[in-house]
């Protein structure tokens, strides 16, 4: 079971939900795809961390072979190459690593070299395998890191033996994917292989507006999904109204709560700190499993 947690708007509680679900589902896998601002590892504080750099290919010019024909400059749709003062200049930061310039160069003056843009870390904490992608500051895109994360987290053998408490699907432990905010390419990459999506929404008109966007996204990708309403206050909840009007499944309502907020802001896993929260996330986990089970049944 691979569950992706997303939200359109930032700060709605994606990491809270993902981290705590992974904690109550242990043994499990947690994957932090918010590579621009990864935070899950701050909660798990994993040990035995192995780090692997993620590199992309960027062009490397042999100035002796370059004749200044500018074919590469004309070809590059990303404007990552310029020819000025008798020299070819490569702008690494905006290069998309398509390899086109190397193909079009008639002189064989261009080759490719690795450039590190960040890393993938893998560690464990209380029977949770924790995968974290980290984009270096100043880099434009973390998509290659997300590819690497999802590949690694789905291919490698689980570190843990079977748990007695949690019945598992034959294809391995439950994996929980913490997505970046928004609904752009980077989010789509994160949810592509998910069996189920959890949309986390805040009780504001901002939250509702952004819920609508991710709702469209999961609909477009034909992903089964449900909504967690977080930070619920007394009074009107535009996100709840949105769900009710459209018959969207509400998986859970997490009240606004100073204690939860304080624990979470100190990077504590609330499900490990209090029975109330542990029960709440266990219930949510069961609900999600049921939903995924229904989906599997409906498509078999």
């Amino acid at each position, binding site marked *: 079971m691979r569950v992706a947690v997303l939200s359109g708007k930032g700060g709605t509680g994606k990491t809270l939900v993902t981290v705590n679900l992974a904690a109550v589902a242990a043994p499990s896998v947690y994957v932090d795809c918010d590579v621009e601002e990864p935070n899950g590892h*701050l909660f798990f504080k994993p040990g035995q961390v192995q780090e692997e750099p993620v590199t992309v290919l960027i062009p490397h010019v042999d100035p002796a072979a370059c004749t200044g024909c500018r074919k590469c400059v004309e070809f590059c749709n990303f404007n990552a190459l310029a020819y000025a003062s008798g020299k070819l200049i490569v702008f690494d930061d905006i290069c998309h690593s398509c390899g086109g310039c190397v193909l079009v160069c008639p002189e064989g003056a261009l080759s490719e070299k690795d450039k590190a843009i960040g890393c993938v870390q893998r560690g464990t904490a209380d029977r949770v395998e924790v995968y974290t992608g980290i984009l270096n500051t100043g880099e434009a895109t973390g998509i290659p890191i997300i590819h690497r994360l999802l590949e690694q987290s789905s291919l490698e053998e689980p570190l843990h033996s079977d748990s007695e408490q949690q019945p598992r699907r034959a294809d391995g432990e439950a994996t929980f994917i913490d997505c970046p905010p928004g609904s752009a390419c980077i989010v789509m990459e994160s949810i592509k292989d998910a069996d189920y999506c959890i949309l986390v929404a805040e009780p504001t008109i901002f939250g509702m507006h952004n819920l609508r966007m991710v709702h469209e996204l999961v609909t477009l990708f034909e992903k089964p999904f449900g909504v967690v309403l977080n930070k619920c206050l007394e009074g009107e909840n535009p996100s709840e109204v949105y769900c009710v009007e459209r018959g969207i499944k509400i998986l859970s309502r997490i009240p606004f709560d100073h204690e939860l907020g304080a624990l979470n802001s*100190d990077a504590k896993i609330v499900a490990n700190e209090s029975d109330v929260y542990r029960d709440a996330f266990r219930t949510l986990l069961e609900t999600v499993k049921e939903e995924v089970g229904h989906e599997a049944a409906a498509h078999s």
Partner: protein
Amino acid sequence: MKQLLILSGKGGTGKTTIASAFIKLAAAKAYADCDVDAPNLHLIMGWTSEPERSDYCGLPQAVIDPDLCTACDLCRQHCRFDAIETGDVYRVQPFSCEGCGVCEYVCPAGAARMIPAVAGELMLYRDSGQVFSTAQLAMGSGTSGLLVTEVKKQMKSGAGDVDLAIIDGSPGIGCPVIASLSGVDMVLIVAEPSVSGISDMERIIRTAAAFEVEAVVCVNKSDTNLSNTKKIEAFCAEHGLPFVGNIPFDPRAVEAINDGKTVVDIECISGTAVRSVYKETMKLLLEEEVN
């Protein structure tokens, strides 16, 4: 034109809440929402008129003409983005295509072609006194940095020669944030007093520094974790970053937003705090001008 950009690294710290209040307090003649992935500023700025809309074409997208395709597989082998799907026919998965044009170049049959693609919509609200530039990126599109640049361009050309522009940014540190940083005079970073918030704040501060934009910091929801708020203040002091104030958590702020109002439109503690943050920030932004 002095441009003030509001960023946070972490999402949901209150960028738009603070940007909207600043726009009101400054009676800004030009402002923009650069969070093109999830724009929200238009929800509370109270424009009743319809904006001028225009399509945003990002990079072109590849298509394969099945009648010309000989299934030679060269496009798939050369595509670095795994955007070529094979099956009954070769086709391009539009969400994966980044528009590089390599498939068109390698196709010996002329079957792969690049065509213009609409990747979002630009909107410009304007009346006699103000312009507001915003946009919405199409679902799953990948060129948010370029669209951010267009939003800022549209704001500048629409506003002409005004003193001040306020720009609401996006979360993260990647391409839309980098695009929004270009040409601004100062960044106000809205931090949150959580371990996550501090980690994200440090990353956005490093990003702003890499592009040589001066940053000042405020803390929102400061009373939700006082010891973390102290840590942020200490971090700023240690790194020589001006600290422009704390804004307490305020349920009235949520009510104001849901009413389509900014926090300075009603009497509330967060509104009072934002006024003071505004004063401090403007003082520093204008000092800049003197130098």
